[in-house]
């Protein structure tokens, strides 16, 4: 059973739909015991970092997440919340990954747009999370902030500057892109996560 952490940050539906498509069992919950006892934990979400941290904290979920031993995957803002801090709302985050989250700088002349929206390549893939995925595979991104490349980086991408497209430390994984919206490549990554 996969626990999808519900902390009121908008659309969890697309993650649920993607898990349905690959036939995985899940529940959407903010219950501490269910999260602690799940085989896998997903931390999805869209929204603003400081208010998302606030919501995690109101539900007493910060320490629950930090203490998890099973594989945990943060998606998009979920990855960002697992970093040290974010420029967005000057948020102090969970501090699982030793990385800072910074805003992209738009540069229309070079085609660098913010939000970074669309399909981009992931490279330097170094994790069983990317089993069967080719270097340079395209995945779908939608974000204006990104984590700097850091020690645990297991995939990189580029939008004006290179950033961490995925990070891993121990049992914690983060994906800045949306595997649930990344076609067959994304479904493969989700399946890999389930099989970690």
């Amino acid at each position, binding site marked *: 059973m996969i626990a999808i952490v519900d902390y009121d940050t908008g659309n969890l*539906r*697309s993650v649920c739909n993607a898990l349905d*498509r690959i036939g995985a069992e899940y529940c959407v919950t903010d219950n501490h015991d269910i999260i602690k006892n799940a085989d896998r934990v997903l931390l999805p979400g869209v929204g603003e970092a400081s208010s998302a941290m606030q919501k995690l904290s109101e539900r007493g979920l910060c320490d629950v997440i930090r203490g998890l031993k099973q594989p945990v995957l943060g998606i998009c803002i979920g990855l960002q919340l697992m970093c040290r801090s974010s420029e967005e709302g000057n948020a102090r985050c969970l501090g699982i990954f030793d990385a800072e989250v910074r805003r992209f700088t738009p540069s229309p002349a070079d*085609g660098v*747009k913010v939000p970074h929206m669309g399909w981009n390549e992931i490279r330097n893939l170094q994790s069983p999370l990317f089993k069967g995925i080719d270097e340079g595979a395209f995945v779908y991104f*939608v974000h204006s902030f990104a984590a700097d490349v850091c020690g645990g980086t297991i995939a990189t991408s580029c939008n004006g500057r290179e950033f961490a497209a995925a990070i891993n430390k121990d049992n914690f994984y983060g994906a800045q892109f949306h595997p649930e919206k990344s076609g067959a490549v994304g*479904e493969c990554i989700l399946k890999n996560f389930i099989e970690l």
Partner: protein
Amino acid sequence: MVAKRIIPCLDVKEGRTVKGINFLSLQDVGDAVELGRMYARQGADELVYLDISATVEGRNTFTSLVERIASNINIPFTVGGGISTIEDAARLLDAGADKISINSAAVRNPQLIDEIASKYGSQFVVLAVDAKLIDGVWRITTHGGRQLTDKELFSWAREGQERGAGEILFTSMDHDGTRNGYPCDTFAALASELSIPIIASGGAGCVGDIADVLSKGKADAALAASIFHYGEITVEALKRELQKQNIKVRL
């Protein structure tokens, strides 16, 4: 760098797609989910579903269709048509839409952009703008180009960005349906003024037109309907042609 996106657009009326020929691979070309899946298989980067129903029943059918699309399609999709309140947006978000596009309602009530963007994020809001060149000024129109407004394209697009739109979908009503290509200079000027992505719509008659708007016009994405629905070219063949012209696409 992010790839240029190719986005087929499907018009939906009373729950069924209205344009299109019979594709051999499809049982039911009117089924919006099946058609969308076919485009996704061909390599479409996103899909846009436009509700052109005129009735309340049609609207309700559309919402349940959006739920089916969300369960079955593994790429992002935008829905548009008749969204005029934050409740409309919320209903479609709950049904599973990744983005909504707003047009006339935002012209009437620009605050709507702020409301939706601040509640659901900029990534959820596509501002669709239809404009016409009149005496050297690109004027914003509504109602499919029939009504002129006092807004001007560049200032309205900038305002939309400042209010929180995540993308601009620009259609030149002078080019829409002509199949003579896009006003690339205008697209390029718009791209240099905005920091958010621009989707080009309306006017594609051939691969070269799409290549031009993505390169010379600096658009981030091209949306097209007829060239795909009438089977003139598949999404995949289009993307291969674009790649030959050194345009970065996802293949």
